[in-house]
């Protein structure tokens, strides 16, 4: 790990991070503000009138508490897609473009092992993902305590976010793995980002109808079961651990690939 490189990457990319912070602030504060314990009923009615559309975005049971509401409206779609887009952009900026354009040559022409460079860029990526999710937790807690008397069950809420972190660690490691493994951006980012987007689409489809529910076995997002995590369901916890394990596997494979392969520099 090279602190010099870590700092330079954050200095060069903090603006992108701030843009995502702004987008999340906008969405999350609006969603939290939309919560009204009395409104729950009318939302339920809306959901009943167009169940498939709501289901596609993971909003099956709007529920009654603030946590249920947030789980439905944020953790089903918005908090999956926004950090995923951040991950795609950062994988391009931290790895894919350096290999594609050739400036990786300068990084490797220094007394650092390839694995050092790999780990450093990965740390920049993961620290950004953690930053986004920690910020989102603080923001939601802040907004909800300012707007409502009803407080969120902190332990359950945090558990949900650990699960969310698992999803994004997996996406980040997978995108980073492909970013390290291919020479051209269209492949290195195309495959990683493609798998991320398709995962989301498959999940949306699988939620629409029972007939194609089996599709859920083809997306890693099924491993993130927010409602199960909130009741500490054992299977949900195992699935979450699975996400972290997959992330570690991707990182190990990525590091080995990157250290051993020929680079077009």
């Amino acid at each position, binding site marked *: 790990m*090279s602190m010099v490189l870590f700092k330079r990457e954050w200095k060069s990319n903090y603006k992108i991070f701030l843009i995502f912070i702004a987008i999340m602030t906008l969405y999350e504060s609006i969603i939290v503000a939309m919560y009204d314990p009395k409104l729950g009923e009318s939302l339920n009615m809306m959901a009943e009138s167009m169940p498939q559309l709501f289901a596609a975005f993971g909003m099956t049971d709007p529920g009654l508490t603030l946590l249920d509401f947030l789980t439905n409206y944020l953790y089903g779609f918005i908090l999956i897609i926004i950090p995923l887009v951040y991950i795609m952009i950062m994988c391009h900026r931290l790895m894919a473009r350096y290999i594609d354009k*050739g400036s990786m*040559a300068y990084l490797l*022409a*220094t*007394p650092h092992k390839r694995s050092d460079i790999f780990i450093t860029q990965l740390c920049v990526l993961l620290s950004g993902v953690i930053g986004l999710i920690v910020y989102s937790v603080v923001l939601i807690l802040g907004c909800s305590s300012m707007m409502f008397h009803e407080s969120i069950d902190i332990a359950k809420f945090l558990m949900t976010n650990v699960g969310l972190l698992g999803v994004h660690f997996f996406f980040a490691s997978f995108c980073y793995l492909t970013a390290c493994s291919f020479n051209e951006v269209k492949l290195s980012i195309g495959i990683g980002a493609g798998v991320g987007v398709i995962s989301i689409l498959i999940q949306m489809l699988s939620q629409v109808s029972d007939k194609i529910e089996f599709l859920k076995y083809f997306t890693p997002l099924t491993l993130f079961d927010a409602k199960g995590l909130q009741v500490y369901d054992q299977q949900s916890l195992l699935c979450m651990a699975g996400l972290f394990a997959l992330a570690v596997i991707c990182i190990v494979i990525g590091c080995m690939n990157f250290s051993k392969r020929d680079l077009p*520099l």
Partner: protein
Amino acid sequence: MSVIKVSHITKDYGNQRGVFDVSFEMNEGEVLGFLGPNGSGKTTTIRQLMGFMKPDQGEVTILGMDCFNDSAKVQEKVGYLPGEIAFMEDMSGLEFIRFMAKMKNMKDMSKAEELMKFLELDARGKMKRMSKGMKQKIGIVIAFMQDTPILILDEPTSGLDPLMQNKFVELIQNAKKAGKTILMSSHIFEEVENTCDRVVMIKEGHIVATKTMDDLKKNRLKHYEIHFFDESEAIAFSQKYPQSQRDKKIIHLMLKGHTNQLLQDLSEYDIDDFNARPQSLEELFLHYYGGEQ
């Protein structure tokens, strides 16, 4: 012990591109010119020396260390100038130079500043807006600033104007005096002629010649251009020197030594004009480049 050792490396890209069974060695303090046309395998060889890729067969070592597996240790000893300019364009030139210095664990920036002054480089602007020549200067500063014992330079003068090319030759000569081992790829013969001790020629991935510069200079022919007043005299002269080429009243002649004899012969004719110049390296190598055709 040789500083750089390339032994029997093959890297096949298919379609007969790549390098095939390339071998050469460099001793300490030697300046080696690596010559060849575009696409002949110069950069491919250098990439293997820098540990960016592994040879399919053979071995590349620097100071006895494997260039791929021990690349981090090798890099401590090597200053590298890539053939393609690809910087981190969001930085200014100066920021990039400082960043690279920190990445190389350098503390003393005096050498970098000296180099910037020498190359008349003002690196404060954003690199995105810099001309090719300015970027090349930044690359040169980064390669030389750490004062490493080995320098690997891939087409170092591309993008530089003639004045800067001369300055660069000076830079190489100073580095040579300081005892550095320098590998320099090029397709410009003049810069090689003025700097290198030895030349390795590569063509289509195969080494076609390895010659010392002294050897080359010794075997060098002189090129004479003789203008006669009378075409019949030119014909008579060309019969005496069958290797010459005649274009009406003008005779082109390549000759090694025998200068006195030539002058005596010429004194018998009525000469309008007379030019003599040494054969360029380019002409010398033409039969390697042009061969097989």
